[in-house]
């Protein structure tokens, strides 16, 4: 929704270059990136990324279903530890 079709999906050019390079050499090292707004394109499948969440890097192995989403969608920027101080609550958010 929103972005004009004419432009196509936004893909971080530096990141794409890195991925393609890795494809050539067959390397499997996770790619560290801050480009959360980069759309996941089919070329990214079965590559591993370390996506910045503002503080640390979340490991993300790209699967086919993830195509079309942005990298940042898989690295949550907020942690919710629950309300109230009294009793301990079960963690509402599964850490991924």
């Amino acid at each position, binding site marked *: 929704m929103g972005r004009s079709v004419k432009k196509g999906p936004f893909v971080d050019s530096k990141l794409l270059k890195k991925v393609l390079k890795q494809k050539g050499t067959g390397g499997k090292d996770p790619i560290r990136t801050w480009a959360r707004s980069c759309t996941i394109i089919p070329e990214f499948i079965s590559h591993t990324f370390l996506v910045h969440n503002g503080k640390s890097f979340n490991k993300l192995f790209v*699967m086919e*279903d*993830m195509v079309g*989403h942005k990298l*940042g969608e*898989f690295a*949550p920027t907020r942690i919710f530890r629950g309300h109230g101080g*009294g009793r301990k609550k079960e963690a509402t958010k599964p850490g991924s």
Partner: protein
Amino acid sequence: MPRIAGVDIPAEKGIEIALTYIYGIGRKLSRDALKALGIKENIRAKNISEDELSALGAYIEKNFTVEGQLRRQESQNMSRMKNIGCYRGLRHRMGLPVRGQRTRTNARTRKGKRRTVSVKKSVKEMKG
């Protein structure tokens, strides 16, 4: 009572409104269908002819996703997002608004009935 698209039985209402009783059809799609088939919108659902009724059914089947199929599609999309662990999937899982709405107040549709979290002091503290 006329019957369109499987189980739906819209009744005494104008046909444009009656069609919106089908899951997945709102005023827009209802009007589109009627326009495409050249049926007047101000006619009552009960007064619609057999031919028009079957034509409507066929048109809706062909052009729109409705009812069970639409529900299935929706839940499939949801479970896909849950499985890949994207932000929207996480929000669905937690039962919070998915599209960036505020949650400080409101968001009651997603969060359900208010659960008041009172800050209770332990019995010892209150005595002491």
